[in-house]
């Protein structure tokens, strides 16, 4: 123990003398942990929100009936439907104010709730209490905390009413309070009124039709996709995770480089300790303890950084998830203990990975071996061979994953293999370049320049690999995002041809509006759309996937403008005949459909066999989509939603039409938007989706700059002995530092050159493989040379900035320090 402590103290004293090295190591580990845990926090947050959405008693998981005209309806409809055999459960929702905050009050009837919801209700005595009197108000623990109230409290609502005693229900959404339906009717002052009927079981085929029981008063609303959110958003999160891992790896490169250097510089200390009798075991424990302490420290710092990153990115991610999938995220970041444990664990694992080779090398070192770069050329050749072998292995892995694997994971594995392989192979072309330079060089100084650069290569290579990864990712992701932006904008222009889009509140409203519009001269065409939902399975194993079927009337608006990827001759004619469909790219890939294949669509009136006559891109859509003729759809789906409209009008009269529509029909128009606003909104969703990606991309670049800086700083100290002879031979410090600067810039430039093809390969992998597997659509592959220039400049700038400080130090180094090299021979 004594030995261990003194060995640890002696080893640790090294960091006091070299705070820069310690900082690089610490920052490397901390950044790796920060980016990884930041992404993990974002993912956790999203998953928790999905759970909450699903956990809001699962009320959204059942289809329901709502008033066709919106608002409330009489309870008698519930009784009438139940007595007709419809298994429906009444809900009354409203808002109450407690203190200065609003809460969503949901009244439920526990005995008739759908199974998915009733399973989450209290049972036994607790159910008796819930039914009352006086009943119970169920709320999430957070809600109770926010209210500052304990269980059993009965907060006042307004002047006269009180909530029933509060009780905790773990998986309710915050801000939601659940009471018995009778209590809700009293508190919301809606006696015998309901806002929704959940359909607990689909009505039997021979059950009376909805309209036969209660007329047109209620309309059916499909279940939220909330429970499917987790599935749909998986790809999105996998993307994030991949980025987190990339950043983690880049961070580890930094840590590895610093560890390597630290171990090398401490070899003499370790040798001395061994010579004066510190046992190998004590030294091993000391090194491991040091590593663990460092990892814990850096891990905690990284976790704090990760929290900050996640907090900064959360709004963008929340917005893009909502835009893409309609998933709502809690705005406040919550941190689970598992997040802390996994984050610190990643820091520890990272530290071990980064330090393993150095540790093993140190401990296996014979006490008497002399550390100097003797026969370094020989050693370097070995090192290069090893790098080449590892690179080949990684590239082989990438190829295997690409050829043999199928899912998104395989896509990412191939990408990781490609990046890693390329990074490992990087020193090969660099070394070749330097050898060539050395051979071609005339003057002694130039020759020395190349030879010395060659010797420096192993020390810098890790930092350069990190830079390569960051630059390639930058090019790859940049190409993808820019390419997508252009494609998307063009696609929006083609797809959004109609001037006005609106949704009627009910079918009665829809008819009235249609009649009214038909009389207006400034409306060139009324295009009613019709929507139905179904699910399709791609295979027996795969779970059902939601598919939307859109029925549109035959019109020039579609046949002349609608963007298609592949199409048969007279595709629109076939669609209009009612036996053909256009299929979205996602759905086509999922179901392996091509032009000419046939598809059986399950409908309420039996299977409907259609021929696929066209494939169209449906960027950003999480579900599959089919487009068919409207009349054909209505004849097979009598209950299909017939509320959506597109209007053609002159651009200048569009605002008038919109105003007139709204003033004439008021709440009869549920939603209305013009073309420009719709495009704007779509682009906003798009931008936000990639905001997180772009932010992580930029962070990775910053990290690689830090890596380069750390490596250069630590190397600079070790460079003095190499430079001193030149100085003694008459090369000025200014020239020496200039040469150093040129060398670093040269390295960066060469790395940037290599990063262009790698970045393009990455971009191709992203658009043609990862994106297809993640989202189901393929993007056109664009090349943006201006981006390369940008990246090139960025690389030089990064290198220059990173090199500046060490070189400034060199230029100002005291001649005494250089002299010391001779006085104090190693």
């Amino acid at each position: 123990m004594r030995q261990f402590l003194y060995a640890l103290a002696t080893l640790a004293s090294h960091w006091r003398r070299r705070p820069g090295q310690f900082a690089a190591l610490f920052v490397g580990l901390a950044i790796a942990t920060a980016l990884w845990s930041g992404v993990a926090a974002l993912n956790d947050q999203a998953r928790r929100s999905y759970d909450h959405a699903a956990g809001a008693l699962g009320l959204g998981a059942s289809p329901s009936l709502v008033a066709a005209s919106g608002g409330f309806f009489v309870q008698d409809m519930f009784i009438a439907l139940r007595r007709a055999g419809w298994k429906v459960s009444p809900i009354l929702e409203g808002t109450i104010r407690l203190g200065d905050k609003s809460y969503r009050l949901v009244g439920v009837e526990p005995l008739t709730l759908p199974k998915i919801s009733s399973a989450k209700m209290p049972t036994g005595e607790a159910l008796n209490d819930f039914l009352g009197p006086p009943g119970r108000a169920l709320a999430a623990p957070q809600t109770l905390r926010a209210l500052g109230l304990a269980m059993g409290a009965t907060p006042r609502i307004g002047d006269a009413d009180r909530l029933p005693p509060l009780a905790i229900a773990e998986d309710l959404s915050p801000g939601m309070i659940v009471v018995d339906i009778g209590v809700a009717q009293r508190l919301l002052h809606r006696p015998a009124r309901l806002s929704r009927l959940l359909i607990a079981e689909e009505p039997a085929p021979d059950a009376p039709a909805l309209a036969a029981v209660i007329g047109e008063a209620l309309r059916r609303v499909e279940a939220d996709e909330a429970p499917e959110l987790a599935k749909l958003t998986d790809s999105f999160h996998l993307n994030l995770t991949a980025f987190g891992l990339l950043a983690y790896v880049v961070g580890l490169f930094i840590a590895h480089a610093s560890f390597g250097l630290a171990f090398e510089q401490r070899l003499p200390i370790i040798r001395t300790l061994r010579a004066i009798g510190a046992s190998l075991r004590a030294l091993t424990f000391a090194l491991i303890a040091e590593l663990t302490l460092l990892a814990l420290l850096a891990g905690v710092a990284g976790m704090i950084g990760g929290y900050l990153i996640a907090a900064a990115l959360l709004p963008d991610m929340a917005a893009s998830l909502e835009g893409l999938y309609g998933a709502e995220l809690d705005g406040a970041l919550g941190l689970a203990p598992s997040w802390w444990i996994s984050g610190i664990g990643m820091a520890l694992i990272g530290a071990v990975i980064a330090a393993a080779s150095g540790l093993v090398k140190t401990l296996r070192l014979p006490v008497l071996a002399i550390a100097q770069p003797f026969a370094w050329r020989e050693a370097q050749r070995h090192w290069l061979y090893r790098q080449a072998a590892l690179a080949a292995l990684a590239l082989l892995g990438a190829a295997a994953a690409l050829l043999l694997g199928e899912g998104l994971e395989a896509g990412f594995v191939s990408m990781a293999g490609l990046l890693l392989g390329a990074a490992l192979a990087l020193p090969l072309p660099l070394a070749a370049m330097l050898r060539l330079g050395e051979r071609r060089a005339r003057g002694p100084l130039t020759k020395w320049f190349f030879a010395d650069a060659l010797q420096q290569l192993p020390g810098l290579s890790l930092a350069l690999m990190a830079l390569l990864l960051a630059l390639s990712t930058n090019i790859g992701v940049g190409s993808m995002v820019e390419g997508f932006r252009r494609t998307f904008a063009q696609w929006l222009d083609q797809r959004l041809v109609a001037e006005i889009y609106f949704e009627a509140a009910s079918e009665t409203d829809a008819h009235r509006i249609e009649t009214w519009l038909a009389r207006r001269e400034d409306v060139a065409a009324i295009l009613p759309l019709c929507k139905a939902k179904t699910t399709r399975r791609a295979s027996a194993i795969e779970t059902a996937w939601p598919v939307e079927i859109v029925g549109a009337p035959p019109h020039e608006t579609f046949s002349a403008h609608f963007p298609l990827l592949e199409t048969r001759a007279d595709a629109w004619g076939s669609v209009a005949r009612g036996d053909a469909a256009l299929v979205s790219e996602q759905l086509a890939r999922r179901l392996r459909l091509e032009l000419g294949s046939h598809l059986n669509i399950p409908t309420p009136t039996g299977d409907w066999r259609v021929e696929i006559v066209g494939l169209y891109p449906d960027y950003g859509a999480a579900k599959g989509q089919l487009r068919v003729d409207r009349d054909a759809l209505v004849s097979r789906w009598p209950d299909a939603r017939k509320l959506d409209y597109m209007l053609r009008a002159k651009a200048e009269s569009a605002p008038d039409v919109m105003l007139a529509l709204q003033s004439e029909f008021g709440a009869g128009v549920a939603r209305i938007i013009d073309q420009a606003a719709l495009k704007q909104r779509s682009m906003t969703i798009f931008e936000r989706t990639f905001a997180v990606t772009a932010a992580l991309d930029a962070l990775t670049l910053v990290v690689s700059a830090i890596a380069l800086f750390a490596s250069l700083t630590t190397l600079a100290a070790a460079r003095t002995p190499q430079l001193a002879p030149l100085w003694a031979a008459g090369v000025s410090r200014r020239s020496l530092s200039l040469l150093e600067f040129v060398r670093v810039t040269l390295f960066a430039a060469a790395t940037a050159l290599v990063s262009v093809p790698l970045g393009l390969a990455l971009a191709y992998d992203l658009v043609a493989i990862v994106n297809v597997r993640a989202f189901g659509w393929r993007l056109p592959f664009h090349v943006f040379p201006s981006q390369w220039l940008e990246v090139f400049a960025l690389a030089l700038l990064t290198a220059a900035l990173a090199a500046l400080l060490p070189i400034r130090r060199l230029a100002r180094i005291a001649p005494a320090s250089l002299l010391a090299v001779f006085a104090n021979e190693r």
Partner: protein
Amino acid sequence: MSVMSAARDAAVNGALLRVTGLSKSYRGPQGPLPVLRGVDLALAAGTSLALMGESGSGKSTLLHLVAGLDHADSGAIRIDDVEVTKLDDDGRAALRRKTLGVVFQQFNLVPSLTVGDNLALQARLAGRYDCDWRDALADRLGLSALLDRYPEQLSGGQQQRVAVGRALAPRPRLLLADEPTGNLDEATGDAVLDLLLELSATAGAAVLMVTHSALLAAKLDRRATLAGGRLAL
């Protein structure tokens, strides 16, 4: 007095160090390169011996073997009735820590520790740190005013004095010195060696020193020369 008779004397008097039949060869490009071919040596407690020989004669190798820093091919090394060649790594480390003091040609100080901490390092590892003894050493070695400095701020002679102090701080039975003044100028070297011998005597440590200088060797009790892998008269 011959080395052989000295070995006999040591055996009679209970030698501190007894080396018998020690052989060691290194792997060279053309097969094994024998360095030591059956060396016998004995050293009584409190005495000193200078080990001389040309470069490559195996002086340092012999010293390293005695320190347990390297493994012999055959033969035995006994220090205080402990058979060094039979010790495992932990045992050798303990031997170095507690029984031996080692001074190298290169000063081998820990650059990130102060002079004071360097002085105390081995004694602390051995669990024998004695504040008064360290202060006495520092005083005698002329390092008292330099205790808070770092090695790189000292001259070569000062650094080697720190190394000597570090080796003697745990009061070893045997001090092994490998060309301790090789990196120092003559006057400094003389002074350091005098201190080394004087303090070893004070501490009651025997001294085995490798040197190629006959002048320095003369300061020790006895001398022996390595040639052709054997100790010569």
